[in-house]
């Protein structure tokens, strides 16, 4: 099946590349034929043209750089405790009992409404933005990690106990690798959430970043620039996802397929 698998991988790639292109193509056609209102939904070709303009002027890179830095910092700050707490919730019932209600109650609190309070606590600088990203990353990762641990077949926990795994080794050798595929899913969800929240955070007191760029473009009714911002976020999301997929393949070599 080696040849066949290569072929099907190849055709998967093709589909992966084609499906967004088809959608963009449809949009382009709709825009050109006037089916959609180009004042609000400009043609992709138009947006991409503008993207190159902004990129060559360097303005875009500043925004992207600022957002990526905040994203990376917030990701680390949110992800690491989320995995540790998630593993503990999954492994130990009292921890679960203590954290579950807190998480389920605080998770749905609208982050946009919290922004003023976060500003109060973290100030207007970078830390408030990083905190927003961290909050966004935290919840999906912690919830998925706990769910991941709970779906580990009980026999593996038995093996760990029987072979004398310490509490730490129970985390490291059983819960973490067993939950890893789901932790990765949580991380993908969390990173996307982080991107969403960075855009909200950058609407306040920021002078650069994609969120600022998009919001500012809305304020100035610069629709093209707004779309460039959304487009760049989509690309970042896509690339991040592909990166996490590659990472997953690298650190989950035991998984079939």
């Amino acid at each position: 099946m080696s040849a066949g698998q290569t072929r099907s991988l190849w055709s998967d790639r093709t589909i992966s590349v084609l499906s967004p292109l088809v959608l963009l193509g449809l949009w382009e056609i709709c825009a050109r034929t006037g089916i959609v209102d180009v004042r609000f939904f400009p043609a992709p070709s138009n947006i991409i043209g503008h993207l190159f303009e902004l990129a060559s002027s360097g303005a875009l890179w500043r925004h992207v750089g600022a957002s990526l830095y905040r994203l990376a910092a917030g990701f680390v700050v949110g992800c690491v405790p989320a995995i540790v707490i998630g593993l503990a919730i999954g492994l130990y019932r009292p921890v679960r009992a203590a954290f579950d209600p807190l998480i389920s109650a605080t998770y749905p609190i609208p982050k946009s409404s919290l922004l003023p309070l976060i500003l109060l606590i973290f100030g207007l600088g970078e830390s408030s933005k990083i905190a927003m990203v961290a909050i966004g990353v935290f919840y999906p990762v912690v919830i998925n990690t706990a769910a991941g641990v709970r779906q580990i077949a009980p026999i593996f926990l038995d093996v760990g106990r029987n072979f004398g795994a310490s509490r730490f080794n129970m985390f490291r050798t059983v819960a973490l690798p067993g939950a890893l595929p789901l932790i990765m899913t949580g991380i993908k969800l969390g990173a996307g959430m982080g991107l969403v929240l960075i855009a909200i955070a950058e609407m306040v007191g920021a002078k650069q970043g994609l969120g600022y760029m998009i919001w500012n473009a809305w304020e100035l009714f610069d629709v093209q620039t707004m779309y460039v911002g959304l487009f760049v976020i989509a690309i970042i999301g896509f690339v991040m996802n592909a990166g996490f997929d590659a990472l997953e393949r690298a650190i989950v070599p035991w998984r079939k397929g």
Partner: protein
Amino acid sequence: MTVPTTTAELPGGGQASAPKISLRDVTKRHDTQLALDRITLDIPVSTFFVVVGPSGCGKTTLLRMLAGLDAPSEGRIDIANSQPGHPQNSMVFQGDSLFPWMTVWDNAAYGLTMRKVPKARIDEVVGHYLNKTGMYGARTLYPHQLSGGMRQRVSIARAFANDPDILLMDEPFSALDEQNKTLLHEELLRIWEETRKTVVFITHSVDEAVTLGDRIMVMTAGPGRIKTIVPVNLPRPRKVVELRHTPAYGELVYDIWAQLREEVDRARSREPGSKA
């Protein structure tokens, strides 16, 4: 011989020394269903103790309690302290129990790694047992790349390598061909004779039970009780292949086989809603 038997009544038992494992009125319920019913039992140190019984009679349930993985619903289990430097017990689980995220080598080395044994020692011991189980060549593979029998062999290597005080083995050779099985019988007997571990061994093969065991406990169907405990007074060291030709061997096999047959028939006829 359906009365629960304690050590004192057993011929050839080590009455003098304190038992390694002692169960007193151990009862286990899963939800409301009774799985084991008042098991009272002493297993002297260095005994090769075999458990046979019809499918679903509670053998695995018993072994899991000996391993400390489940607690009895009633009664108590006492296990004598283990020798220094050895873990108390290691289990060969029934069915798949290899970590899918570890290679064959890492799975086999798991117990030693957890005990922080020096790497050189791990390499030596794990290498030895992977070799003995014929899995050395596959040491870099992951479990999903192995056949069922290969996985079982790694699981055996993992328990052997851990060098525990008590070896708990739940149908360890069920997925192996006769030849691999014979080789591992010999290895197991060698380990046992060298180290005099206490072994509790579950099997469905009466041949295997008689070949390996000092005592064979036959369990009743339904809620598991002790039907009888049969001492095996075949001389040691035993040669697996030759043994089978001695008349004492055949008699024992037939005796246990008949006891078991009785239990299965009883279980089948008692089956609720049976249409048979």
